[in-house]
């Protein structure tokens, strides 16, 4: 059942740069160029450029589009923007997941509201047909059209504190593009025939969808662009970014950055088990006392009536050594009893302890001459609840590592910083 590996429009660029390539989600993607460590540190200190064209996207439109998404999506589109939770409106986006009736994950997603009756759902590589099929099966007699945009767009992420300065050099009208560009908002569209396309253009006239989102925990943008413009857009940004220290980054740095940012990898940290009791409660429409949900959606009842719950937690280790989840790796309590499994274990090379306090290389108050060695971090899933600060042992065939349960990992992340501070 060998399937042909797909290539993004930037495949030739990656190979020409000497990238170490590997299969991810059915696509041959760069793992790193010359150094995954430097790519990781580059995003924390300057900025990184990622080819994420392997991601899939669906266009959901029609008078009943919102109703279908409310039925399928875990977050409440009528109460999800900011605090207090306001309804999703055009130009804003929200994170959540699609579950089956058992409350188990189909995929996670960011939904962008394009207009009153039109939404773009960004999902994971290879998941376009699966999620589109799920939507169609759930649509019933709703008046809604679902189309797969996956092969109609390319995607480039610019992540890191210099991202806005870099994009200022390639946008036709950066001031208007960046105005009120809040975290989890977006502007523009990649299809030149759309009325939204005029909102954000590159200096050569190419329309883009510019979104203040990302998968690194750091300040930055995701850019959606027509496939025939991907290479040129990438090269424009790459050139413009050189004076700001922009680094092309592969999936290894993306994985270690998102680990330190406490972001889940779909089908690894969240998957075929109930989507609850995890570090991402903001993806669920909890009511104020957490006793139930503010709307109904597929899987909601299953989540509220679990007989033997499992709990997912973030952890951080004492140094950068990892366990290998391929072995697989298990979790032991201090008495040595097996209590669960390790979902993700990566090294965030930008963090370390200094006199008992955790710093990032991007921390404004980091000590002078701070040179992080990196710390292992990730997620575990266990059978009984643990408190922050609890110590557990991760064990693979090679070693045992003592790690601490935490609510956050890399400090001083920049993702939510106001854009005016970053220009």
């Amino acid at each position: 059942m060998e399937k042909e590996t797909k290539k993004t429009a930037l495949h030739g660029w990656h190979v020409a740069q000497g990238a170490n390539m590997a299969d991810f989600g059915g696509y041959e993607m760069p793992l790193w160029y010359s150094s995954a460590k430097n790519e990781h540190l580059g995003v924390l200190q300057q900025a990184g450029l990622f080819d994420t064209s392997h991601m899939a996207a669906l266009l959901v439109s029609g008078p009943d589009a919102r109703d279908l998404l409310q039925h399928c999506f875990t977050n409440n589109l009528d109460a999800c923007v900011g605090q207090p939770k306001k309804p999703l409106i055009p130009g804003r986006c929200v994170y959540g997941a699609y579950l089956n009736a058992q409350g188990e994950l189909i995929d996670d997603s960011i939904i962008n509201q394009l207009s009153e009756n039109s939404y773009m759902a960004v999902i994971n590589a290879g998941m376009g047909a699966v999620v589109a099929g799920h939507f169609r099966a759930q649509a019933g007699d709703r008046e809604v059209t679902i189309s797969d945009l996956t092969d109609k767009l390319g995607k480039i992420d610019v992540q890191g504190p210099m991202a806005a300065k870099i994009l200022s050099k390639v946008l036709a009208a950066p001031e208007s593009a960046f105005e009120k560009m809040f975290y989890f908002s977006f502007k523009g569209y990649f299809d030149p025939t759309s009325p939204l396309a005029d909102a954000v253009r590159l200096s050569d006239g190419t329309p883009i969808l510019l979104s203040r989102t990302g998968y690194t925990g750091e300040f930055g943008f995701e850019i959606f662009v027509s496939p025939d413009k991907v290479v040129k857009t990438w090269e424009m940004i790459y050139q413009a970014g050189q004076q700001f220290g922009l680094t092309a980054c592969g999936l290894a740095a993306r994985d270690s950055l998102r680990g330190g940012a406490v972001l889940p990898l779909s089908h690894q940290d969240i998957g075929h088990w109930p989507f609850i009791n995890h570090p991402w409660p903001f993806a669920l429409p909890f009511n104020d006392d957490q006793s139930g949900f503010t709307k109904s959606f597929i899987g909601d009842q299953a989540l509220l009536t679990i007989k033997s719950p499992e709990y997912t937690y973030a952890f951080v280790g004492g140094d950068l050594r990892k366990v290998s989840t391929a072995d697989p790796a298990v979790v032991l309590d201090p008495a040595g009893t097996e209590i669960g499994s390790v979902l993700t274990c990566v090294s965030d090379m930008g963090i370390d302890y200094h006199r008992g306090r955790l710093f990032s290389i991007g921390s404004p108050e980091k000590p002078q001459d701070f040179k992080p060695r990196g710390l292992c971090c990730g997620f575990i899933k266990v059978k009984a609840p643990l408190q922050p600060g609890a110590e557990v042992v991760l064990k693979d065939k090679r070693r045992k590592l003592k790690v601490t349960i935490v609510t956050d990992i890399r400090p001083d992340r920049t993702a939510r910083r106001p854009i005016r501070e970053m220009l």
Partner: protein
Amino acid sequence: MSKAIGDLVLPDDVRYTLDHEWARQENGNIKVGITDYAQDQLGDIVFVELPEVGRIFSAGEEFGTLESVKAVSELYIPIGGEIVAINEALAETPEQVNSDPFGNGWMIVVKPGDIAEFESLKDKGAYLEILKGSE
């Protein structure tokens, strides 16, 4: 892989293993490290775990681990014997395994139990054939 086989450094003065370690005779002892191919495949080496001096291994046994950003891999000893030195500098600068795999990136020195084991290791030509076969 990022480096083409023609771009790999493959010194004549060492022997090679199927696991991509190298072994070099020095004053009757055997110095051991990993090859340019291995470091290129692993990517950034960020941590090297080495055995204590004085420990005794049989040929092919695991003697330590290499931690790259992406993965953890075992190190296998090319020749049996006693560890008489380890490269302490790798604790501070593990990246030397990437930058100078056959020089400053060395890992251990073994006092061989049976030097005939060294003679049975692959020479450069045989190792090159193995790399071509795995392409």
